């Protein structure tokens, strides 16, 4: 299948994502330049991490108005797949493609370390092949990752199984100690009502290479690929 990875000025996880999707997982991957509206016929749009436009004003706020985002919004509204990781998640929230928003970490500090998470539902292509009891070790690296949504939206997310990942401890328990940034209900990733747009703060592409000593993130990409093979 064909992936497109958006390159905004200030993206810095774009190459990492391309490396995993093409070199490690053997897919067709094209770069999508922020000034172009053409999505080059990709099946799946990836919005990478980084600091698009320096993350000035608010993370993702300026990137959301890039020419390429108009096409991404159309693509998603027509049921096309897209996934944002870290800054990509923030951009998709700013663009209104995902519910909720990401606030400054409660500690008001950037945090980068390995964390643990578990899928919260298997009803999406990102999580369908994952083992619901298996704890995944995936790193985070963000200053604004505290997931927040108003009560009514949060209720909807839970009712529709739109929470895709929650932070847990190494043993798989959800508790406040395992929550790195103060996210509501330990939420690490969500999907939209149509379950075709996804966002997560942790970086699976940083845990998908045997040489890095951690391949848990690869399982997430494989879940996506498996769903497409099955479709």
């Amino acid at each position, binding site marked *: 299948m064909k992936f497109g990875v958006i390159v905004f*000025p*200030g993206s*810095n*996880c774009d*190459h*990492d994502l391309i*490396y*995993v999707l093409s*070199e490690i997982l053997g897919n067709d991957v094209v770069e999508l330049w922020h000034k172009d509206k053409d999505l080059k016929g990709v099946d799946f749009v990836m919005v990478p*991490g*980084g*600091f698009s*436009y*320096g*993350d*000035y004003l608010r993370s993702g706020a300026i990137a959301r108005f890039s020419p390429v985002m108009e096409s991404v919004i159309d693509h998603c509204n027509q049921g096309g797949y897209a996934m944002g990781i870290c800054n990509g998640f923030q951009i998709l929230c700013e663009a209104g493609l995902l519910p909720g928003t990401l606030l400054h970490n409660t500690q008001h*500090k*950037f*945090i*980068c*370390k*390995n964390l643990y998470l578990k899928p919260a539902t298997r009803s999406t292509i990102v999580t369908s092949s994952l083992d619901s009891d298996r704890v995944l070790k995936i*790193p985070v*690296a963000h*200053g604004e990752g505290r997931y927040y949504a108003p009560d009514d939206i949060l209720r909807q997310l839970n009712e529709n199984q739109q929470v895709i990942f929650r932070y847990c401890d190494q043993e798989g328990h959800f508790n406040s100690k395992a929550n790195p940034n103060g996210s509501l209900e330990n939420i690490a990733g969500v999907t939209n009502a149509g379950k075709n747009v996804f966002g997560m703060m942790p*970086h699976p*592409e*940083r845990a998908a*290479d045997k*040489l*890095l*000593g*951690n391949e848990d993130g690869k399982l997430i990409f494989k879940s996506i690929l498996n769903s497409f093979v099955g479709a």
Partner: protein
Amino acid sequence: METAEQQGTTVQQAKDLGLLESEFEKIKEILGRTPNFTELSIFSIMWSEHCSYKNSIKWLKTLPKKGDHLLVEAGEENAGLVDIGNGLACAFKIESHNHPSAIEPYQGAATGVGGINRDIFTMGARPIAQLNSLRFGPIQNEHTKWLLRGVVKGIGDYGNAFGIPVLGGEVFFDESYSTNPLVNAMSVGIVDVNKTISATSSGVGNPVYIVGSSTGKDGINGASFASKDITDESADDLPSVQVGDPFQEKLLLEATLELAETDAVVGMQDMGAAGITCSTSEMSADGGFGMKIHLDKVPTRQEGMLPFEILLSESQERMLVVVHKGKEQIVEDIFEKWDLNAVEIGEVTDGGQLEYFMNGEMVATVPAHDLVLGGGAPVYDREYREPAYFAENLKFDIDSVPEPDDYPATAMKLIGLPNIASKRWVYEQYDTMVGTRNITTNGPSDAGIAMIKGSGKGIAMTVDCNARYVHNDPKTGTSIAVAEAARNIVCAGGEPSAITNCLNFGNPYNPEAYWQFVMAIKGMSEACEKFNTPVTGGNVSFYNQTVKEGSEAVPVFPTPTIGMIGLVNDLSQSMTLNFKTKGDLIFLIGESVEDISASEYLHTIKGVKRSPAPHFDIDREFQVQAATLEMVKSGHVNAAHDIADGGLFTCLVEMGIYAGLGFDITADASVRLDSFLFGEGQSRIVVTLDPAKEDDFIEAMAKTKVPFTLLGHVTRGKMMIDDSHFGFIDDASEIYSNSLERIIDSSVSS
């Protein structure tokens, strides 16, 4: 205003700009007339300590610079280049940003990171890793906490957004750094050897471009400022602060690397200290050409900037590019793509003269050669004298220090001291993983290792300097800094290849401070020769001193920070430091000595400040490293960790915390137990191995003729020494991992 600038200047003006009377005379001689103010400010900044190295170059020239793998030697380009095979080279350099960080820690540290990365990518290399070496006053002080928080956030915010991971670093606290923190930042990049960009200008008629950010009034006189004593008053020196823009830097990086793929560029130089002045003169002097520069064409952020302001501005994220005539469009298109300024401001001329124009009128004309280091810049021979404290240190007698009454309590206290405890609070604020090259995230090691994707190789890197050792004995202490860096590389499975240095010292006009500098250079030379690690470049920062109200300035501990890289030829042979399995055997390579000199234990727990550097024998050190590398590469051992700050006990705790494993060891009865556990005698490395490999290991070690002993074995969690219970690793881990955070955050909660 214009007329005032055009007039001849006086010796008083020269002095105000930081020049000596003799230097003013020399300038008049060079020009054959009295310089105008613009010209005088050009000389003042180019002849400042920061740009000219006038008080250090004599000694820097004695450092070993030759090496088998060096493609570019020190001083030839912005940074050294080491051949790493596969058609690739590694560019790396370390630089200080101490004085700006003392005033405004956040921006000072951020622009330090920006500057050192520009040095690397100006050469066409993509930075792949950063390291930093930080020093502050006692962490309990509120002022220190303010500095630390600002510096760490500045490094993090800039580096994280720029997108280059931090792979290593050190943080050290001592009284001497109270008002003068040290912020040393290192960047490591890789480049295709055929695509490097030179910092030399040539070709009469070739256009000269300024690219990147607009020029503002920020940082004017910054370089001169950096060379002056700093006291509390300088907080009012507003224009010395520069603001970093990591977003702009990221765009500049991508545009520059695209430019490196073309054949449009003659040469390129980043603008750091002294801005346009420095880049135009250094690029020109290198090739023996001149330049005609139209300052009115430089994009400025503010209206009405004067010629000298444009020339001296240290606005960040700018570069000077000399382009092959006829290929201007290629360059302009690339910068347009990345939404960056690229403006032609002049051209290369014959004859070596720099001519600066404003609205068609010449405002300054100076010979490039006479401005630069290695050209006409002054070189001084400074007086030095051994300070009285040194002889006092040598009188230290271990018998004057009683052994602790309670060893387990002392051990637990030691691992919670700010200089020993984990620096997690600091490094978790840095992105350590972006770029997906850092193999030490999940495999902790004595050195950071960045893999070179697709080659099976990696670059090991480290920054090291125990400044207390250097203070106590500058020559031996600096040799140890080089040796420790090499030891860290070796423990990670790498072969040391070269170093960069950041020499942080006091006032060079103080003969005792200068003695520390001279001795440090001698110690560094000796060790670099021994370990075959030439010096590829770096920087010197003088005038680092802590000024307290009503007393004389006290120099900081002399701190020659060593940044070393090494090659890991086969990543499958790289080594981690953590205990693997209960029952594994623990061996010591090297030998225990009766020595607690300069240790954290002696200094902080026993409160004894006067002692020499720790025991160090450079030949033994070399043998220990060679033997360890052999054991690592042959797969005889499954973990290796050097004994450094905090001694053996700290070393074992650091190995145990990852998997919650303890140790059961027997002490060496021939030395005092505090020497054995807490002493920092050099040339000792702890390794562990599967008991099934014991015979092979012993046989292989016996052949090396390097002393080694069986210390004991890895336990499930208990820490036992000579059958005494020292507690559990989980408790040690709690103290080691969280002590620093508790101290730093203590004021917030109380």
